[in-house]
């Protein structure tokens, strides 16, 4: 107990002093996850929307596949990306293993199915409402998709937050493909795992608190966006 109290005090001091090692790790984490989020969004939003409004053979199978991929165990994603990027793998020549880029790729693979599946749901619901009117107005498909994405933007923001939350909190995949190399690929989750195993609880706790704050912040944002508040929807949708 005595030990823990000391660790907490030290963790507080690290955060308060913006300890350079701590800041470096936090910034890298955010940078990696935001990059993965941007890539996933570029793939997931249009693909999810397309799945929501188009009818083609195999569409149903794709939807099931995405829903199944949502539950991919992160370590398995890590393993697969590792095999792709390792020297013997098809992308070995790129020499990406143990770089931040490798972590971005792993997180992208991890959250893209989530973004596709959730986007599909959001857009399908909205399309259910709009479809007849769009058909009546003679709206071309690409205009319809753009309009659905735009009009569903607040729900989609919560989808992005869900992806962000999942990616930044993930440890297994980035550990495998990033290698947790100090100053290069050490992010919050892998650092916490390492420091804890070394018994260095102060830095682990400091990072844990920051990660917790980020998770709570994401949750708070999500519920703010989803709040059934007439005023908000009035102001924002105008």
């Amino acid at each position: 107990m005595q030990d823990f109290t000391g660790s907490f005090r030290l963790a507080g001091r690290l955060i308060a002093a913006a300890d350079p090692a701590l800041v470096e790790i936090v910034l890298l984490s955010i940078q990696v996850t935001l990059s993965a989020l941007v890539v996933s969004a570029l793939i997931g939003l249009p693909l999810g929307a397309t799945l929501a409004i188009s009818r083609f053979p195999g569409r149903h199978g794709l939807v099931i596949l995405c829903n199944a991929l949502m539950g991919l165990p992160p370590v398995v994603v890590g393993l697969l990306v590792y095999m792709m990027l390792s020297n013997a793998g098809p992308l070995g020549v790129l020499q990406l293993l143990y770089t931040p880029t490798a972590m971005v790729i792993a997180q992208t693979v991890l959250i893209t199915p989530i973004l596709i599946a959730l986007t599909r749901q959001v857009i399908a619901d909205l399309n259910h409402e709009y479809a007849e009117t769009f058909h009546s107005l003679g709206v071309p498909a690409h205009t319809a998709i753009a309009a659905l994405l735009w009009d569903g933007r607040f729900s989609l923001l919560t989808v992005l937050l869900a992806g962000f939350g999942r990616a930044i909190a993930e440890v297994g995949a980035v550990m495998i493909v990033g290698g947790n190399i100090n100053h290069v690929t050490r992010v919050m989750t892998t650092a916490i795992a390492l420091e804890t195993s070394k018994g260095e609880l102060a830095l682990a706790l400091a990072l844990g608190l920051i990660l917790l704050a980020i998770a709570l912040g994401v949750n708070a944002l999500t519920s703010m966006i989803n709040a059934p508040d007439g005023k908000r929807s009035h102001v924002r949708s105008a």
Partner: protein
Amino acid sequence: MSEVLDFTPPRRPSRNAHRLAASPMPLQVRGLSLELEGKRLLDQVDLTLLDNGITVILGPNGAGKTLLLKCLHGLCQPTSGTVLWHVDGLERPPVLEVRKAQALVQQKPVLLRRSVLANLKFAAKLRYSPIPQGLLENALALARLDHLASHAARTLSGGEQQRLALARALILKPKVLFLDEPAANLDPASTVLIEEAIRAAQSAGTKIVLITHGLSQARRLADNIVFLHRGRILEHSPADKFFSEPATVEAEAYVRGEIVL
């Protein structure tokens, strides 16, 4: 049913005289039937839209008026029969041209989750690039929604939403405009506004096909009446004739205000 405006309307002078040389009729329906869940909801409907006047589809609740309109507009696939469009003199015009030739105002319009102005702009962009000067402003003025331009469309009252939907449809400059009970549940002022806008569109050359179950609105607006009863067209005649000497027992009962089931 009890419309606020159910007074005996002044008869308008017939506009038929001005419309004899109108453009050729754009829409023909042949043997159209619709079955849903084993029920025959539209039965062998034949309909030719004769001219550019106002055609009113009249009939009791559940007669199939909305379904017929949706079939005409292509929102609903008939079980059998055909809906033939003639656009620009073409026998089989391209699908997109057929789409562009028509617009629909639904009974409960679906508006985008955007401002009033953005809703109009969305429609305008579908037809114009760039959007002509004053188009949106005129549409707003027509619907008397100038003061609400930046409001979220979904926060408007029912009447305002209906007016916006009508303005949105008119921006598309359709050759045929379908209206499904455009003044249901509206106050008298909104009803007058909407009927004025409908007449103005008609004068500008748009063929109007309007559903109502209200006799007074039918009397005020109709040039000819299609009387629908249990999915079948019992009568299609000029409005004067329909009201003065209905040809079927059902229509006669309906005109007398008796419930027809």
